[in-house]
């Protein structure tokens, strides 16, 4: 598939400027400006209801599904305005993948899960060999291949939660996304599975730009390059992770990461 791959001119995976967002009459985001560096893992932290998930869901335009959402401001992904007149939400979602809090593999086989998005977008079905290659590559990338290669035709919903979550990441990869959005990807997992998925996320760093919402301060601290702290729909502080945890610039940030509220 030859595609007009955006030349990553900027070092920015996501560039948010003056983003306001309303659910009906309730304003959830206020004048958000944010630069997410390409190839890094950026953690979005903040108390419940601060707008982290809303911001995340704005980046692949899935918030629009709700129907009563209105926004102003711009979001550019790798230099391209996702709200431009020529931009289709379907193409945006293809290049900006989303992973959810609860693993949500589709009630299909493991193989069909991995190929689902690719089949949606391909005009003609790719050849069987190409599909096999895509499945193997995606599953290898998420460190799942050796564990499931002998049962690719089993239902994905029978996998363990950890495997399901890895599969949910794997199924995004065949359509060659640039950015992966993750909404608390480990919060439904036990500690061992959390560690495994964190390792995976860290291994994807570099090839993909990853924006991850988390409530887990320890996770933000050990598994991100950059950290963004949000409060009441605004970005309060954005800095390198070690700097935020060692020397936060703002009092609210210090209070939150030390567990004084939230």
């Amino acid at each position, binding site marked *: 598939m030859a595609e007009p791959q955006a030349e990553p001119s900027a070092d920015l995976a996501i560039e948010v400027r003056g983003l306001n967002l309303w659910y009906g009459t309730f304003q959830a985001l206020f004048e958000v400006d944010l630069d997410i560096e390409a190839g890094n893992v950026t953690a979005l932290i903040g108390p419940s209801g601060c707008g982290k998930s809303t911001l995340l869901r704005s980046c*692949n335009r*899935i918030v629009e*599904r709700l*129907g009563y959402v209105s926004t102003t401001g711009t979001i550019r992904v790798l230099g391209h305005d996702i709200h431009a007149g020529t931009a289709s*939400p*379907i*193409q*945006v*979602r*293809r290049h900006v*993948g*989303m992973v*959810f809090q*609860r693993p*949500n*593999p*589709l*009630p*299909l086989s493991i193989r069909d899960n991995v190929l*689902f*998005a690719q089949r*949606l*977008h391909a005009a003609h079905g790719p050849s069987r060999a190409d599909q096999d290659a895509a499945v193997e590559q995606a599953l290898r990338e998420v460190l799942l291949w050796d564990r499931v290669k002998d049962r690719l035709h089993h239902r994905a*919903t029978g996998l363990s939660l950890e495997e399901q979550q890895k599969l*949910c990441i794997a*199924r*995004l990869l065949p*359509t060659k996304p640039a950015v992966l959005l993750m909404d608390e990807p480990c919060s439904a997992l036990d500690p061992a599975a959390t560690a495994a998925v964190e390792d995976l996320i860290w291994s994807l760093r570099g090839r993909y730009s990853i924006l991850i919402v988390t409530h887990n301060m320890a996770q933000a601290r050990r598994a991100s390059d950059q950290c963004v702290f949000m409060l009441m729909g605004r970005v309060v502080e954005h800095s390198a992770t070690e700097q935020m945890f060692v020397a936060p610039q703002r009092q609210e940030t210090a209070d939150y990461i030390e567990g004084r509220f939230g």
Partner: protein
Amino acid sequence: MTAVRTVPTDGFATTSRERRALTVQHAARLLFLLVALLLLAPVLCILAVLVVEGAPGLSLDFFLTKPRDNGAAGGIATALVGTIWLTMGALVLALPLGVAAAIYLSEYARDNWLTRTIQVAIVNLAGVPSIVHALFGVGAFVYFLGFGKSILAASCTLAVMTLPVVIVSTREALQAVPKAFREACWNMGATRWQTIWHIVLPNSGGGILTGLILVVSRAVGETAPIMFTGAVFLRALYPSSVFDKTMALSLHLFNVSTQVTNVPRHVPFAVALTLIMVVLAMNAIAITFRMRLRGRKKW
């Protein structure tokens, strides 16, 4: 510093007040059980009478020969075949319309005045008496659309009557598919229709099938909607097209029990038994599907 709380000296022994409460509770349980059992009575009585009185009249011949002497002799072959025509016709019409409406309501509709109006219309459609459906069928299908008194007009009438059942059961089946699957699809760039086609419909097939069977069991037994629109008391020929009139089991039962004088006692019972067996069999299949569907919620 206050003392640590203890329990009373006699431990956790029951009080007389509690014993009274328990007695009332047992009495209440018994009362409600009796009332519930009472509900079984009519069903069992109907079945018992039909089996005792009707079973001797059932035979392969009864199903395979046409009625003679206005139904007093012979079998029920033409009525049985007619009922199959009418029911299949209703199914073919109601299923696509009902499933399409359910998909719209479940997957596309937003909560606005139009959606609420459609919901109210469905509830009201379900509550319309069947004789009113019959008269609507006469006006709309027999005369206005010019189908004449025919299987087509009768099937259309039955379809309109059973639409709410199809819509409600299909919508329930669609809504039983977890939202997380839809989110997964949408976030991979699937359109609503791709999501419905690849994920929602394949996982709600059982529920849709249940609705379909309920339509059959309802349509098989209805009399009023067909007697003005396509069913006749007596017809010697099997139907050959949807524009023919036809006999039907339900109307035949009405006929042999009230309109014809010299009918042997077992004939109406045998017809009724046939009718109720078809309906019960259909309901049993529907219930089995529904139970299997519930048991299979291992997403």
